């Protein structure tokens, strides 16, 4: 990395989106100042760096902000590349398209129903969302076989784009298991993803970045309470 490169990442430990950005930076082996935001009292820097969404993560590179987790991951991948630096996206255009497709699937189809389990206002709604989530994980189990081609990760030998997109949700998948006894990934139903999840968790980058599951559980309880309160006040 060039001298005087200043990297700052604004995030929150339990945010899957911040986890993606943080892990990308760690994978690239670049030094980055990680600033934990208080979402109930967002910093001036966050608000001015991401005026459109006012959300984490935001990467600030030499004073210039980059927002949206997958945009950040691609930016980091492009800026920090070269001999010996691991790639996050593949170089082949078709493989890149497949990676982008599945990352978009995680965000558009899987994440909303997964989050719906925590935000559900009734037990019936929770069961509905859990059913939808279990259905939504199935194509990913198939995709793993196709993308990994027998290797450890969606990307092959090392963690890549789709691994980050889905892997960043593993803490929440485990939190949901502890909170509601709902198993989204299991050795019996999704054996490939189950094995992949273990490998992901064992990686150096995950060990450095992923928070304790209990932190997500605590945050989940807060989200539940906020959702109930919002519904009650309508």
């Amino acid at each position, binding site marked *: 990395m060039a001298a005087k490169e200043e990297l700052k990442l604004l995030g929150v430990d339990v945010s899957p989106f911040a986890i993606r950005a943080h892990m990308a930076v760690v994978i690239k082996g670049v030094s980055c100042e990680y600033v934990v935001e208080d979402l109930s009292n967002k910093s001036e820097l966050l608000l001015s760096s991401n005026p*459109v969404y006012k959300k984490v993560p935001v990467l600030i*590179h030499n004073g*210039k902000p*980059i*927002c*949206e987790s*997958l*945009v*950040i991951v*691609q*930016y980091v991948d*492009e*800026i920090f590349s070269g001999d010996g630096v691991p790639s996050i996206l593949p170089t*082949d*255009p*078709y493989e*890149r*398209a497949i990676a*982008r*497709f599945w990352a*978009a*699937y995680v965000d558009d189809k899987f994440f909303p129903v997964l989050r719906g389990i925590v935000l559900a206002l009734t037990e019936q709604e929770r069961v509905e969302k859990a059913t939808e989530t279990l259905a939504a994980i199935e*194509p990913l189990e198939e995709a793993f076989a196709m993308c990994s081609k027998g290797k450890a990760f969606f990307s092959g030998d090392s963690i890549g784009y789709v691994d980050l997109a889905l892997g960043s949700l593993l803490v929440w998948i485990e939190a949901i298991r502890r909170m509601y006894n709902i198993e989204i990934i299991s050795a019996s139903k999704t054996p490939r993803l189950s094995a992949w999840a273990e490998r992901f968790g064992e990686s150096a980058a995950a060990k450095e970045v992923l928070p304790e599951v209990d932190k997500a559980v605590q945050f989940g309880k807060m989200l539940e309470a906020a959702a109930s309160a919002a519904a009650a006040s309508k």
Partner: protein
Amino acid sequence: MAGGNGELKLLGMWSSPFVTRAKLALHIKCLPYEYVEEDLGNKSELFLSSNPVYKTVPVLIDNGKPICESSVIVQYIDDAFPGVGPSLLPADPYERAVARFWAAYIEDKVVTSWAPVFRVKTDEERAEAVRQTVAAVEVLEGGLKECSGGKGAFFGGDSVGYVDVLLGGLVSWLKANEPLTGTKLIDAAKTPLLAAWMERFCELDMAKAVLQDVDAVVEYAMALRARLAASAGNN
């Protein structure tokens, strides 16, 4: 390498703005392709096997390999044919990040707010969806300001780029919104830059070649609405 043998096939449906995006990108790159109009009421084997996850158009098939999701397709066209025609994404990584940000905004805020207009059954729900879409378009005005950076007239600067293609694909539907709901989505009074952008975009050869006739889109959407209302009446 992908794209070497020149066998490109696009599975689409004439009214789909997402298909229009793919057509625009192919047109910009001057890439010949075979277009196949899919009957979404009777989906072909090729279509179902090429997009088993979503079963939606567009699907681009390059030498037998399918690519799905319009923004993924447009990026693929840019990546796979680097020497052919202009680049859709800027060369500078920071500018690329800004372009990707606004592309994601169009999907997550504009399209997501807007799609319900064509699905909901009551006037109230439709009005609310329109209201949210207008709000999103007003933010996008800021995006155009940021992306064009005084350099020119498009999100891509002097010429059409990635974000222009993604928004451009929606233009006939953007125009159709007024006859369909009474509200202009791109109103020169509220979003002058976007209004000028739309005029400029429609003057381009690619737009003239590819964009759907607005009246045809209005008729199509009205028929869709009538079918929805009929099914609601049957509940």
